[in-house]
């Protein structure tokens, strides 16, 4: 698809950059969100894998004007997140690999459980963006040998701290919630603390490694 800007209600725009995950597009989406927030300062932005949601107050900024500027931003072509040159933090997640989907995932992937754990904990992931719930970081990419489709029927309640995988991604559920990912382990590390100055453990752009216990 051709990158484009579409209205999302009267108080937001959605910048769509593509249909499929691409490492460089994630950085581009974050760059657009950063610029919207820090340079235009019209309102908050929410980047994701292939898009950026740009919010504004339509009683202060005419939507047509916001749209014109978003299109101008898009016309600059691909650029990356403003913070891309900062040293990236490494976040280590101590993990007990005993999730209810561990054995089935190993079998589906034609790997032993030990091999699956070694593959999951044996590489450094990038936190691409946060979304879905407070502190949930979408991290990737999984080793392609790990086959982990989403459950057709999501579980009603997944405990806080559950380490999960789905479709090339991995993450930790910060709060108890429904969810469709494959559950392979758990961590005691709190992922979201609203009383802390930095409420989330993992920030977008961080490097993430799971350390088996």
């Amino acid at each position: 698809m051709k990158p484009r800007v579409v209205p999302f209600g009267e108080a937001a725009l959605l910048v769509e950059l593509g249909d499929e995950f691409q490492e460089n597009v994630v950085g581009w989406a974050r760059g657009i969100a950063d610029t919207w927030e820090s340079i235009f300062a019209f309102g908050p932005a929410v980047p994701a894998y292939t898009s950026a949601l740009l919010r504004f107050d339509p009683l202060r900024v005419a939507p047509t004007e916001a749209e014109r500027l978003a299109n101008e931003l898009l016309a600059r072509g691909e650029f990356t997140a403003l913070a891309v040159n900062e040293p990236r933090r490494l976040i280590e997640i101590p993990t007990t690999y005993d999730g209810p989907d561990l054995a089935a995932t190993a079998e589906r992937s034609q790997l032993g459980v030990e091999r699956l754990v070694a593959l999951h904990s044996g590489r450094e992931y990038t936190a691409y963006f946060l979304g879905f719930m407070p502190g949930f970081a979408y991290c990737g990419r999984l080793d392609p040998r790990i086959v982990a489709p989403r459950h057709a029927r999501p579980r009603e309640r997944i405990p806080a701290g559950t380490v999960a995988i789905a479709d090339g991604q991995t993450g930790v559920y910060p709060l108890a919630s429904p969810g469709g990912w494959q559950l392979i382990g758990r961590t005691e590390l709190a992922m979201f603390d609203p009383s802390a100055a930095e409420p989330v453990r993992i920030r977008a752009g961080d490097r993430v490694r799971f350390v088996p216990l």
Partner: protein
Amino acid sequence: MIRINEAGLRSTVQDRGRFGHLRSGVPPAGAADAFALAAANALVGNADDAAGIEIIGAPFRFSCDDARVVAVTGRDVSLTTRSRLPGWSSVFVRAGQVVTVNLGERTRFGYLAVSGGIATAPVLGSRASYLPAGVGAPLRSGDVLPLGDTDAGAEDAAHRIDPITYDGQARAMAGPHDGRFDAEAIARFFAATFVVEPASDRQGVRLGGVPIAPRPGELQSCGLVAGAVQVPRGGAPIVLLADHGTTGGYPVIATVIAADLGKVAQRMPGESLRFYRVERDEALAALRAQRRALDGGRVSA
């Protein structure tokens, strides 16, 4: 201080929402019927970022330690002091006077504003409660909450703002993912009469009655706004409200305009809901009209 004698079922402190941490996955929260809270704040002379109480389930009864101007808003609401007083108007209450908030059967969310605002400590830049993450807590009988300072007095009583017409008709703009639906599915969405499902909550209003199917194909998760009408695989649309997840991967067929989202939030399970397609200019005109109504009813304090 405001003393909560009876707290209702699941009442919380709410303001217009927390928009500074969306990128950390923190939902905006805030009032589910944003115009109703904004009107209550305007009626008591509060700034538009003041916190009030979102009341779910009667009975709700309170008193304040000093004289205050109060207002209650919502779909079908009134106050009782010594006599019964209408909602959507400002009322002067004396120190210690016990006030009962009456929620009609068709009120899902009632809003109470007190001059000076509820002055609980902000969390991440807002006083909005977000219960799934333990931000704030449901109010309990016996709770005592701090109030901000105010100059509002008896002369500020009896201001009025016209309530929204709480009918089952919400205006919505198509998209942003209308391209993922056949023209026929979009036409059906804007012609259908949906029924509100009991599983609806502050995250979203779930709709049944008329399944709407997107075309097959995967969608990458994207940022969301309140009012977005998501269509999961099963075809039962969900209109997102204040506690919505910050991103999601279901296609959004349409987005309810901000001025009409309170109507959607206030629909009770079993009631009908229809969507009328409008363009952005009409959405903006409706928002401006609401802002004028707030300014017209605002007390000077």
